[in-house]
């Protein structure tokens, strides 16, 4: 798991369905962030959750953080074709982001 791998590595769902991705990490963190990467493009920041927060929402995104289990999940509701991308969680600590291997999400129209 991230720092780490993400779970699942790949996910294909029908447009309109919800997508859930999970990551876990190993060290203590200041915050955990989720990024999206479209093929051949840079990383787009989606949402940041601080270590003292348990849940955060932004539009169709919902992120949870369980520091006791060192895990986080990203839920995308009512998926759209444009959500097709790779999603990475990244933990911030020691002045840097540590990324996992990501989940490749494909939305089927």
């Amino acid at each position, binding site marked *: 798991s991230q720092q780490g791998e993400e779970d699942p590595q790949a996910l294909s769902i029908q447009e309109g369905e919800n997508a859930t991705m999970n990551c876990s990490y190993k060290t203590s963190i*200041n*915050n955990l*962030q989720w*990024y999206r990467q479209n093929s051949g*493009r*840079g*990383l*787009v*920041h989606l949402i*940041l959750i*601080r270590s003292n927060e348990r849940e955060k929402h932004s539009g169709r995104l919902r992120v949870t953080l369980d520091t006791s289990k060192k895990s986080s999940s990203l839920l995308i509701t009512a998926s759209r074709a444009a959500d097709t991308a790779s999603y*990475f969680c*990244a933990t*911030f600590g*020691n*002045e*840097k*982001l*540590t*990324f*996992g*291997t*990501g989940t490749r999400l494909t939305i089927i129209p």
Partner: protein
Amino acid sequence: EPEVTQTPSHQVTQMGQEVILRCVPISNHLYFYWYRQILGQKVEFLVSFYNNEISEKSEIFDDQFSVERPDGSNFTLKIRSTKLEDSAMYFCASSEDRGRVQPQHFGDGTRLSIL
């Protein structure tokens, strides 16, 4: 919305040659970073830079690598003598704070191909 810009988008270089990758961070940001992503692999941290000095670097960032902020807007990564294994996508990022509250904003990257 302000963004991080990187040039060139693609750089092809012969092994052993020097290469400089350029970045213009978001103007009011104070913390700067380089990451790289080898094809099909994780995004890896290279170096962080603040107040004109390196604040953290990874094992990847050896003596062949250097960073510089030559003026008030540019932030560069230099690889002195490139190797085949330096082929990767290099991302520049910047943030307002140390990253504890504000996220890092990434550029679209420079694809570096070493022949």
